[in-house]
């Protein structure tokens, strides 16, 4: 069975669509993408994944809980970093959401792919135990996403590759 990959990214269909081409072409992964937190939660409840790639600036979708959080984080000046709240929930460190996170999720299957600088979020990543991070910046190669998936899978299988 091919490894199952979920990319949670609101720019996946347009601005970053060049990154998905090689993944579909080689066909080595069962790849899916969602664009907001509500849809991501629904996907994660429906089935398990081997790799989750998460953006930090994510729209909330339709769920009132995420919508409210999104509005609050925006007002308190921390920007639209709903992805951080989502990661806290996902790794069971936020008990406020009425739905429990899936039990199969562990930090080693998550990679963060974001415009946020590492310095800004490394505290959060360390707290959550997430080791794979990739900065979204100009000049990304077409195979960035493919390499990110491979890196997470390599770490999971215990043979960590150098970034």
């Amino acid at each position, binding site marked *: 069975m091919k490894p199952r990959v979920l990319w949670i990214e609101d720019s996946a*269909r*347009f*601005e970053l*669509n*060049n*990154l*998905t*081409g*090689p993944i*579909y*072409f*080689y*066909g080595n992964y069962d790849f899916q993408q969602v664009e907001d937190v509500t849809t991501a939660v629904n996907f994660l409840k429906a089935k398990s994944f081997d790799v989750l790639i998460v953006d930090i600036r994510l729209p909330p979708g339709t769920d009132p809980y995420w919508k409210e959080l999104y509005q609050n984080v925006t007002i308190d000046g921390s920007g639209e970093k709903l992805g951080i709240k989502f990661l806290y929930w996902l790794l069971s460190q936020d008990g406020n959401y009425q739905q429990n996170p899936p039990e199969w999720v562990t930090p080693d299957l998550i990679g963060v792919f974001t415009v946020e600088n590492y310095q800004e979020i490394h505290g959060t990543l360390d707290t959550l135990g997430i080791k794979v991070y990739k900065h979204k910046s100009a000049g990304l190669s*077409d*195979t960035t996403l493919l390499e990110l998936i491979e890196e997470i899978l390599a770490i999971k299988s215990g043979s960590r590759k150098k970034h």
Partner: protein
Amino acid sequence: MTDNLPSLDQFEHFDFRELPIGVYMISLDGQLIVCNRTLRKMLELPLEGPPNANIEDYYADPASRKMVIEQAIKVAEQGKHVERMILHLKVRDRDLYVEDYCKIMQNGQGHVSGFVGCMVDITSDFESKQHERELQERVEELTFDIGRILHANTTTLVMVIQSLNSVIQAFISNPFDGYGLPSIEEIESELTEQASRLASAIERFIKTGDDERRSKALPGHKWEMLTNQIEALRDFKERIPVLESQPVALRVSAHSIGQISQSIVPGSLPRESVRELQQAAWHLERLTTLIDVLKTRTAVMQMDYTLQSLREYITADVRETAKRATMTVESLIEQVVSRLASYAQSSRVDIKTYHIVDAKVMVNEREIVRALSNLLHNAIKYTWRRDQTKAPWVSIHTKLDNQKVNIEFENWGVPVSKEEIEEGLVFKLGYRGKWSTDRGRLGTGIGLTDSRRIAEAHGGGMLIESHPTRIYKESHEGYFKQPFLTKVTLYLQITSNS
């Protein structure tokens, strides 16, 4: 009724100390001889007893009192009194701004002996006005800076376009003919041909030579990589659901095959087979790169106009306002079409201009050309191809309606919902249409706001209509996926027509 009026007696016996403004008598050297409770409160003096204070001690700049006295004497020589003079005082380090009204008092020899007058505390009003002035200065400064930055950015974009033109020219045989963005069908046809050519080249290559020579030429995993790509190259349309991602995927594949072919041990396999594989990989990589360059060029062209327009919008208030002049509608439309000709060409959209009425309008040329250009730019940007045999197009019509001329821009493509029109959302600054971001279109959400503002400043206005062109009902999931016919009309008062 008369019982309710204040009596003259009340006025004659009115105690000035009760007035809600500060009243004072001051000696020439500034000693407060008498002052009422309001002034005592303002200066934080004891409310009863002699004031025992000198007004000069309250001046933020004590030296300025001399100038104030000189001015009061000068005004008095003209037979007038000081009125509304703003004094900056300090009460225990707190700023106090007062509006002063005063009259000079003279002794028996006609020399100035002091002043009698009143002061009104205007601190909060003064400070908010000062804050407003500072903000205004800051806005002007920022506007200038943003204008300059945007100017620098548009210059960079021009440079980028020139470089991209050179890159396109360097692709000696461009299958898409010119700089314009090819249609999806053209791209698909070329990609299919070159991907299939590469797949066939791999098929032939893996049959070349015997096992011994093949294993000498390349390691086993590279033969496997080549073999695995044959099917992917033939099925790429089925494998990659997003059309925009197909060229990139094929480029990555072609590049990896090119690298494998470069690593073939020389002399191990016939040169012609190796060359055929290299050539086929190179052709596909070149084609996919060209597609990317053409797309990038179109995106930059679009961004170039958007930035220019944003700069014009931001700097409109700090620019010297040009006088309005009488212009023909035809000359305005000519300017607008010429301004957007390159963008239309790059987007491969034709601009069709229909009967232009013979009418004149009194306008600020620069502003109106910008307003109309915004509308034509939108029409081009949001147009879809409606006929396989023809390039997509936008239409410009003009009509006379009493003393108005309607200038209409019509396109067939991205929908504007009824709700967005009825609630005026499309005119809201920064609002981007619900369906406007399809196919990755970029924008600022300023164009329509700016155009309407300009039209209204000229005594005109704007109207928008958008109707579905197919039979789906609003409840159908495909309703907003069908093309809409959108007409945006800017109307102006005419000065004359023949």
